[in-house]
């Protein structure tokens, strides 16, 4: 499941908007374009002076390669990340001297993929360059949400820990930040960050997603100007062979009609996998990650919106239509990519991270004609589509509070190295390893050797901190161009959902109410056709009496009335 560039699975995206503790105010827009981006939205009443005062000053780097596909601004302050079609041959060094001073640290990060052998030559090479012993201990991403509480309860937190932001609520990250993580405000706020030029080049939104209680705690990875939860993908090769134009999918009816046309169960072909995340976008459902949303300044239950009801009705109809692969309806997600590659499913829903070079390689291994395409965002009734922006950074890492000031400074220097921009010497080492050992220079850029694939082609150091997200797939420019084009269209329809980039901290007594697992569980079952909309309504009513109403009040009084909704 989504082991690629950002490594999120579909379930993760469902929760990607769950925020955690430590109410911070947002309001200041993600600084996107390299040049003077619009600051028209700044200065609204809803941004607290507190957070604005601590956010680092964004300073784009003067060195490094220029993208062939430039940053393009979209709606609501969003933007397409820069796209690179070629890998520079002249690798610029962005960090002049060895950043570390011989300290040794352990880091735990989630990994959705094969865990590389400990102490392998790639780790050794990076540590030599860092001048410190940074021991990476990647943990299985699928049960990472259970790993972290164990580490906390057992007082075994490493020096450096990554916590994906979609688990902020489950893991109570606001409280963790206050009690277990190092406060980096003094080192990074405002101009202080200029000591770390690569960190200063990370767009402000990323830092904002890692701020708690008006203090800076987190290092963001893959900070993006236009991150979306899901994309409706199609098998472009199959559709064009049948003479079907993906642009003909422009509302709920045309989607169903296509389902009928493509499904042929007797030849093991179904039109769709489970498309619930796409259906939510089609019906403009406000994200349910926090169990509450905002209408006209009033906090309401996220399960009470007509949009959700309509979306659930359609999802149920879809699940029962016979056009969805039976294994998808049985939630056999681990085989979802194989179904798509093998042509048993023609349209599927997956995160943006699924669209990259390794996907093209895997797909073409299964079927040489494989081409992944994406359907442009559309509204269920053919009206103008809307698509909710995700937080600017989905992956956030934190330093342990027990580190001394000198150790924190060393880690900041290491972080500055790890955040080196695309195409730099440091970036190349972190992403590809050592030339001649882990990669060789091909016509299109670095190509992994067998050893490199095993050791360096996994997200380890990158999950601690990384430079701004870029679109690049050396050797697979068609993928980069298609993804850039899709995103350039989507950002035009982007909007900030309530509580966007706002780290909210409901008190511990709301722990299970704000994650609303029981209701979300029923919602998911509706998308599999196993429960009905009436079941969701009953569960939502139950949720309200079990504490949901109090949570709604709490959000109104402590978040919206004080900080606003984060959308301005």
């Amino acid at each position, binding site marked *: 499941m989504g082991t690629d560039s950002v490594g999120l699975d579909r379930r993760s995206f469902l929760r990607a908007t769950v925020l955690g503790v430590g109410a911070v105010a947002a309001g200041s827009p993600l600084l996107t374009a390299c040049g003077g981006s619009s600051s028209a939205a700044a200065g609204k009443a809803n941004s607290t002076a507190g957070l604005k005062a601590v956010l680092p000053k964004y300073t784009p780097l003067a060195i490094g390669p220029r993208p062939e596909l430039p940053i393009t601004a979209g709606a609501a302050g969003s933007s397409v990340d820069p796209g690179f079609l070629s890998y520079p041959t002249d690798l610029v060094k962005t960090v002049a001297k060895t950043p570390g001073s011989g300290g040794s640290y352990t880091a735990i990060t989630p990994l959705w993929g094969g865990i590389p052998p400990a102490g392998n030559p790639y780790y050794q090479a990076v540590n030599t360059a860092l001048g410190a012993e940074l021991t990476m201990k990647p943990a299985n991403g699928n049960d990472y949400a259970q790993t972290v509480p164990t580490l906390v309860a057992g007082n075994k937190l490493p020096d450096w820990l990554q916590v994906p932001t979609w688990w902020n609520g489950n893991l109570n990250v606001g409280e963790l930040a206050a*009690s277990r993580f190092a406060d980096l405000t003094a080192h990074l706020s405002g101009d202080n960050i200029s000591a770390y030029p690569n960190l200063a080049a990370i767009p402000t939104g990323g830092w904002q997603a890692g701020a708690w209680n008006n203090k800076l705690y987190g290092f963001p990875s893959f900070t993006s100007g236009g991150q979306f939860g899901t994309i409706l993908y199609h098998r472009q090769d199959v559709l064009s062979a049948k003479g079907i134009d993906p642009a003909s999918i422009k509302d709920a009816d045309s989607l169903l009609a296509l389902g009928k046309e493509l499904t042929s169960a007797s030849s093991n072909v179904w039109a769709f996998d489970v498309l619930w995340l796409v259906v939510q976008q089609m019906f403009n459902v406000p994200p349910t990650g926090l169990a509450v949303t905002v209408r006209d300044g009033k906090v309401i239950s996220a399960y009470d919106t007509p949009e959700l009801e309509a979306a659930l009705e359609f999802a149920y109809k879809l699940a029962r239509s016979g056009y969805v692969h039976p294994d998808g309806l*049985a939630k056999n997600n681990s085989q979802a990519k194989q179904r798509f590659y093998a042509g048993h499913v023609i349209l599927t829903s997956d995160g943006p991270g699924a669209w990259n070079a390794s996907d093209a390689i895997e797909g073409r291994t299964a079927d040489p004609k494989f081409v992944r395409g994406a359907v442009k965002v559309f509204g269920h009734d053919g009206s103008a589509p809307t698509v909710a922006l995700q937080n600017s950074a989905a992956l956030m890492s934190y330093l342990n509070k027990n580190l001394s000031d000198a150790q924190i400074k060393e880690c900041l220097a290491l972080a500055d190295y790890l955040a080196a921009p695309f195409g730099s010497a440091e970036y190349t080492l972190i992403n590809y390893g050592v030339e001649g050992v882990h990669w060789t220079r091909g016509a299109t850029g670095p190509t992994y050797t067998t050893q490199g694939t095993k050791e360096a082609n996994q997200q380890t150091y990158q999950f601690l901190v990384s430079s701004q997200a870029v679109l690049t797939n050396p050797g697979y420019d068609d993928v980069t161009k298609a993804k850039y084009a899709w995103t350039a269209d989507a950002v035009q329809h982007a909007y900030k959902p309530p509580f966007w980039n706002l780290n909210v901290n409901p008190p511990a007594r709301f722990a*299970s109410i704000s994650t609303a697992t029981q209701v979300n569980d029923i919602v998911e079952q509706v998308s599999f056709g196993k429960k009905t909309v009436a079941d969701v309504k009953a569960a939502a009513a139950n949720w309200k009496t079990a504490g949901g109403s109090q949570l709604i009040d709490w959000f109104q009084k402590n978040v919206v009335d004080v900080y606003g909704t984060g959308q301005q």
Partner: protein
Amino acid sequence: MTSAPAPQPAPATVRPSGRAVVGPATEPVPSGATWRVKLRRDRSLLLMVAPAILLVIAFNYLPMFGTVTAFQYYDFIAGFLASPWAGLDNFRALFADPNFWQAFENTLVLSMVQILLYFPVPIALALMLNSVLSSTVRGTIQAITYLPHFFSWVIVVSLFQEMLGGAGLLNHALRLHGWAAWDVMSNPDTFKYLVTAQAVWKEAGWGIIVFLAAIAAIDPSLYESAAVDGANRWRRMWHITLPGMRGVIVLLLVLRLGNALSIGFEQFLIQRYAVGTQAAEVLDTYAYWNGIVANNYGLGAAAGLFKGVVSLVLIFSANKLAHLFGEDGLYRGQR
């Protein structure tokens, strides 16, 4: 354990079932001997059980302190000591939750179905295997039926999905011949039979072992004299084999009833969405889902504690029942 009364001298006896019950082989120690003497006498035995006792202490007794979370609003960051007390609030929330009672009902129903349909299978298999004379054939059958025991539930469920799922072998064949597909894997009404079938396929072969051992312990001379008296195969099975196995069968039945609320976890977690929670949620998945996933550890612990208490009652009752049948069951008090 040292505080237990000195063991009664237990001479070897032959019970009515014909099975020999052998007491401790060591010399009886006069009552009043100090624990030091007993320790010296039993030290090799004690050493042998020590690892097992350590395991039980580490994984069964120590975690019991965690039960305290059932009475707390447990916060894993604050820990046991600093989490606020909830009194019985978690239990109130638990008993007010219809999903909990649904899970409880599912657990009981699934357990009953498994006792009725699964429990006799290994016994029947053992009896049949016992009648196979060729040891090669017997060994082969045993090896083949054992094998699935070593597969994880993920593999077993995937195999069933590949064979019987909506896109599996069976339904593909049905569709190819123009018949309607047969919904085996995602039908909530027949889910209890599906999981029992999976359990039989996976575990029945493994379950044979202990029954075969019981059969092997039966004195062959009983069969010989019965044969001389003209008893045919069926009569010998009915009057010698089955009574010889009775103790073991009752013991396992007691254990099974005592564990009626622990009918597995992964098997149900994996298939939860395939049939929906109204059929697939059991107490263990409920506790996991509502405790760990939903970050409501107190509620999860309350569900677990409730399950533990009910299981304790069940095991006492089942043991009592075993005594009524004239068997030892799990244990017997001082006679």
